[in-house]
């Protein structure tokens, strides 16, 4: 049975895979996009927000047809410590108008739409198919095998997500370690559109993105998130896998605690949980990046660790889309001189540099180590909430001026001035 041959086979119809498939099909290549879920998106979940710039560049004004939930106009950073919480609330009304800075999304709808765009552009999309093996001939990837069926291609793009089994089968990387990934778990909670807009003081279809740090992760390296969709709320937690490995806390209990937390419960009152999901999230940025190209293979999206987490900002989908675009450009250029060897595909790194993926990862290269500092998740949240509590409490106790309050709280939180200065400066330099 002579095997069918494609120019390129893409494994995984997530943002990276579908973007690459869309661009390559539009350029007239024979593209096969293989997705293991029944429909693209049915196996994908994420925190809840996509920054628009990457997709806007490829599909201008995509929001006019893409199934997006709400444009985010309000960013909230909340430090939590028991009964106390301190929130910094930033709002930009312009983000509520084109080109819409970022959108909350639901992946079941969005990924299905993006894959459909690839199909419309001419890509063959095969769903409900698990890729079991790579076909390798004297060190070169020449295709894939799914069940009994073998398919050949000049190049395979491994966009199969954070577990990146395909990249490992190609020998490009080892399994990510607990330090390099975090476990994210999330509940989608249904509330009416009006209730959400009222409770978060939003007008029209605007949305909120809120990140939590503090005792919601019981001191473990991680944080909580809340994103408002049209008529649902994405609420969840991301905790470093290594922290989970060494603590007895179950992430399901942390989320249930989060829902009962006095600062959050009022926002969810009367809500109904409609889904519980979980996924790993790359955390180590550049330091976990595997070999992203080889003979006849490229690695894109989460499979390449392309996620940036600076604590106050988490970016995954825009990185995946940009890496899909870079992979597509690489394949097109390799096709021109018909050289899909490792050397022929090495242009991938250069295309990634031209975009923001490599620059941002390199610029924030040491962010992950900085973020791993335990003080970030216990001491500093306490410092902030404690300080604010001193600032606003009036109970007749002896008056203390501001500097006294700061020094008092630092002593209470056992944080020295130099320690604070060093962390502060490092943070400012690295994040």
């Amino acid at each position, binding site marked *: 049975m002579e095997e069918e041959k494609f120019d390129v086979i893409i494994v995984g119809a997530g943002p990276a895979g579908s973007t690459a498939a869309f661009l390559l099909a539009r350029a007239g290549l024979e593209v096969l996009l293989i997705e293991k879920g029944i429909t693209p998106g049915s196996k994908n979940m994420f925190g809840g927000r996509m920054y628009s710039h990457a997709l806007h560049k490829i599909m201008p004004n995509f929001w006019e047809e893409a199934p997006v939930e709400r444009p985010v106009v309000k960013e909230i950073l909340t430090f939590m410590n028991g009964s106390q919480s301190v929130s910094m609330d930033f709002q930009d009304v312009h983000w509520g108008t084109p080109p819409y800075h970022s959108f909350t999304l639901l992946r079941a709808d969005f990924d299905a739409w993006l894959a459909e765009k690839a199909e419309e552009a001419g890509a*063959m999309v*095969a769903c*409900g198919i698990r890729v079991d093996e790579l076909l390798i001939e004297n060190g070169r990837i020449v295709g894939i095998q799914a*069940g*009994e*069926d073998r*398919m050949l291609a000049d190049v395979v793009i491994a966009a199969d997500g954070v577990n990146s089994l395909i990249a490992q089968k190609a020998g490009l990387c080892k399994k990510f370690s607990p330090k390099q990934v975090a476990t994210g778990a999330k509940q989608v909670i249904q509330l009416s559109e009006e209730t959400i807009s009222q409770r978060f003081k939003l007008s029209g279809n605007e949305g909120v993105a809120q990140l939590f740090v503090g005792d919601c992760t019981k001191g473990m390296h991680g944080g909580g998130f809340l994103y408002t969709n049209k008529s649902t709320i994405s609420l969840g937690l991301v905790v470093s896998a290594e922290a989970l490995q060494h603590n007895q806390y179950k992430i399901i209990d942390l989320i249930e605690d989060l829902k009962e937390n006095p600062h959050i419960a009022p926002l969810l009152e009367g809500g109904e949980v409609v889904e519980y999901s979980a996924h790993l999230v790359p955390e180590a940025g550049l330091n976990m990046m595997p070999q992203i190209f080889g003979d006849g293979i490229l690695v894109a999206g989460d499979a390449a660790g392309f996620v940036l987490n600076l604590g106050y900002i988490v970016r995954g989908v825009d990185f995946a889309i940009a890496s899909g675009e870079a992979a597509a450009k690489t394949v097109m250029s390799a096709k021109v001189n018909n050289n899909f060897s490792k050397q022929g595909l090495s242009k991938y790194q250069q295309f990634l540099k031209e975009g923001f993926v490599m620059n941002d990862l390199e610029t924030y290269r040491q962010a992950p180590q900085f973020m791993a500092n335990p003080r970030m998740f216990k001491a500093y949240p306490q410092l902030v909430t404690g300080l604010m509590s001193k600032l606003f409490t009036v109970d007749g106790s002896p008056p203390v001026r501001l500097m006294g309050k700061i020094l008092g709280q630092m002593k209470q939180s056992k944080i020295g001035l130099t320690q604070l200065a060093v962390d502060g400066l490092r943070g400012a330099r690295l994040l």
Partner: protein
Amino acid sequence: MKILTCFKWVNDEADIKVAANSHELIFDRVGYKISDYDRNAIEEAVRLQEQHGGSVAVVTVGAPAAKQSLKDALSRGPGKACFINDPSFVNLEPSQTIAILADALSKQEYDLIICGEGSSDLYAQQVGPGLAEKLGIPCATNVNKLTYNEGNKEIIAERKLDDCVEVVTVPLPALVTVLPDINAPRIPTLKQVLGAAKKPVENVTLDALGQNYEPRLQTISVLGATMERRHLKFGTEPADIKVIIDALLKEGILA
């Protein structure tokens, strides 16, 4: 052997929610699927064709949106699809589907029509036998084992009925409805999924049929099923057990 096999594109009942107070059904975010038992019908048709040669065409009646079902159905082995569609073909009651199929298939040639036992949404179990009656061909329902006797152009069907297993011979052309345990539907492979997109689809529209199909059975209401139960909960202490047993005695259950 020319085989036709029918399937229905149904709401996935697992996605349907019931509103707490009004008991209305909530259909947002409800996915669609090929009705579970129809997959056995398609599988049986393909197996017979693999054994005896000939062709398998898959037939469905639905709204234009049901077009997405064809790729799934064709990836399970049939060579061709007959898509009988019109925007009005939504929430059809069985006698409408039977009439539409009968008109559409009366012009087709076939030796055997294989249907599922019943759809996983309405489970009316009518389209198979009703269609056979309209087409004037013999039928065997609840078939658990099917063999084709090419010699005298007939099939031998084992029917698993309430109280017995009845083995019958049925001359072709004929119709059978199959039970879920007749076979285990295979999962479409990559090549089948890709091949499906290239297979021919014959579109049959309402005006080609030249009739209008009024419902005879009209649905007045559909509400979530509710049950008034006492919902009393107990621990495992002997005292709890005693309370329950006394209650059961009082109910005259343990005479």
